[in-house]
């Protein structure tokens, strides 16, 4: 690395970003990152990698995507956990999860979407309309899904602006749903092959399955270490690891996370913590926290608690389940991929009892003292599912705090008091 920072403005201009607004965004995110992450103490050394990745989030990583595309590669953007990264990689493309974790260009968004749309969807559209997301502009294809109604309809608007393929996701998990879901994946393979001009073969798919599973295994190790008291890594840092997993280079990220896991395992054995021993331990369940949404973790940890797990798409749902690696034919591999992905426990499904089991099991495994049930405002699915989740958690003798919020800072004062009170009661 040279001392002189590289000027990426020409690259961003080439992508058609709104440069002044993009500068403002980078400055805001950089400031938030400094205040939220760099002020933490006793961080594992391995976090240096993620700090670096974040400092280059619109720089070096975009350059990699840019160069890859110049050499003929294709980039595919996704918004949901149900889109199999394995298929994208097997077709020779790279997958990037598009963030949608900050308020942006809401005035423009609200000309298209109702005000009472969840922050994730508004942000997803806002980053496109505001022309500030280089990942979106690098994407040769976006993949949407029929998950919640808001997203489903918002994709119609997004599709007017960018090349988009929508996967139809079933809402139940019966045999016939699995068969249908598998057929959707077969169609996706055809779309991807057409995009890249490369065939998905048994060899390429086998490699992709292994690579993505390895990434999940590394994250499993990182997260298993959090069961120790004192927790060897903060909730903020662990959340960041999963957020970065969505867009970083897969083999490199896996290697760095395994190194981080080695360090965490050693810290756990030596009793070294990022939080104080005996700090109140919280498991968070609910809607995803897309980059740079660190609001809840920050509040909990500033109040002296420590987040020890996330039962959410930016958490356990991302890394807990693996795709079967024993399959040899493409057909068998597709079976395995369809089954693994349909097994994710999202509130879009009915019933979704698996999620309740996951929450309670994780709370036990990670030694949580309480559970925070987090929902983005206007997310009907998760807000309604709260009723049964919270009842089951209470039934398991764990206190639960329900929080409904958005990306704004308007309610942080009130949330801080509620969270402090919750930690005091644990």
């Amino acid at each position: 690395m040279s001392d002189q920072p590289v000027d990426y403005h020409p690259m961003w201009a080439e992508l058609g970003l709104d440069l002044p607004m993009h500068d403002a965004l980078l400055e805001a995110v950089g400031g938030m990152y400094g205040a939220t992450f760099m002020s933490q103490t006793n961080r594992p050394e391995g976090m240096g990698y993620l700090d670096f990745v974040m400092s280059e989030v619109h720089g070096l990583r975009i350059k990699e995507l840019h160069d890859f595309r110049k050499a003929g590669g294709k980039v595919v953007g996704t918004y949901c956990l149900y889109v199999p990264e394995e298929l994208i990689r097997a077709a020779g493309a790279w997958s990037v999860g598009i963030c949608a974790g900050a308020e942006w260009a809401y005035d423009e968004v609200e000309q298209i979407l109702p005000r009472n749309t969840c922050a994730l969807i508004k942000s997803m559209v806002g980053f496109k309309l505001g022309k500030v997301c280089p990942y979106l502009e690098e994407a040769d294809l976006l993949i949407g899904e029929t998950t919640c109604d808001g997203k489903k309809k918002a994709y119609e608007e997004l599709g007017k602006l960018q090349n988009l393929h929508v996967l139809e996701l079933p809402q139940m998990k019966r045999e016939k749903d699995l068969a249908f879901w598998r057929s959707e994946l077969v169609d996706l393979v055809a779309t991807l092959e057409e995009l890249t001009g490369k065939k998905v073969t048994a060899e390429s798919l086998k490699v992709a399955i292994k690579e993505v599973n390895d990434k999940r295994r590394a994250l499993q190790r990182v997260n298993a270490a959090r069961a120790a008291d004192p927790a060897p890594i903060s909730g903020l840092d662990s959340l960041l690891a999963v957020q970065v997993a969505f867009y970083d280079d897969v083999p490199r990220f896996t290697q760095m996370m395994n190194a981080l896991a080695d360090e965490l395992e050693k810290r756990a054995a030596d009793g070294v913590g990022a939080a104080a021993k005996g700090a109140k331990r919280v498991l968070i369940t609910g809607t995803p926290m897309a980059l740079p949404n660190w609001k809840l973790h920050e509040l909990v940890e500033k109040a002296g608690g420590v987040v020890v797990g996330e039962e959410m798409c930016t958490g356990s749902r991302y890394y807990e389940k693996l795709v079967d690696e024993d399959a040899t034919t493409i057909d068998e591999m597709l079976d395995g991929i369809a089954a693994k992905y349909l097994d994710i426990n999202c509130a879009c499904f009915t019933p979704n009892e698996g999620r309740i089991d996951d929450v309670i099991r994780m709370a036990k495994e990670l030694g949580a003292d309480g559970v925070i049930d987090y929902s983005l405002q206007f997310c009907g699915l998760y807000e309604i599912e709260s009723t049964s989740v919270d009842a089951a958690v209470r039934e398991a003798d764990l206190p639960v705090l329900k929080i409904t919020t958005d990306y704004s800072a308007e309610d942080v004062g009130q949330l801080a008091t509620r969270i402090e009170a919750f930690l005091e009661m644990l």
Partner: protein
Amino acid sequence: MRVLGLDIGSRSVDAVWVEDGRIVDWAVADSGFDPGSAAAVFVDRGAHDAIVSTGYGRHGARERFGGTAVTEITAYGVGAARLFPHASSVLDIGGQDTKVISLGPGGKVTDFEMNDKCAAGTGKFLEVMARALGFTLEEMAEQGIAASTGVSISSMCTVFAESEVTGLVHRGEDRSRIARGLHESIAKRTLGSLKRVRAQGPLVFAGGVAKNPAMVALISEGFAGEVLVPAEAQIVGAYGAALSFER
């Protein structure tokens, strides 16, 4: 060992000096523009060995005066449970916020809900409505009790409810019935929060609004268990903060 409990709220600053769990002195001041300075007057008396602050100004007070801080939820829970050892729940309606707390064995907080985003249903709401009706707060409560039926008020938002009340007055609606309707709408909303945290009796009703006889009557009527009002309902938070020192 004498502990000073400070409850620094948006409307008032309450101070309680506690020794061996008993209140030896207490005082209340208006928050004014600078609640910190209002609190400093109590601290400057120098009659304490330790300070515990609570209320929305707790962190500022801790930085300024030292000591520790606890949230209002913990403070009210501890204070109410010490005043009434058999209490199972707490309701606090203050100047600008409302909290409901469920207590487990030993006065431990098991669940809570709070509203401090807007003035709906708080002391501030009652003040604004009394003004719109041309009553003092005391008169409004008396009239509310005297009226046998209330006019239903559709809005809980202070701004909307105020124009609703003004409209009703202009249409010649009986002011006592409006007064009753206003108290009833707050009671209904409060009883809903109590249900959500599964509050059981006996319920300790604290905070400035607990001094309002119409509210006490309506909450007692609507709540399934016994309702207890401490003699000095306003200082429960400060008392609880001071008691938290031992914990």
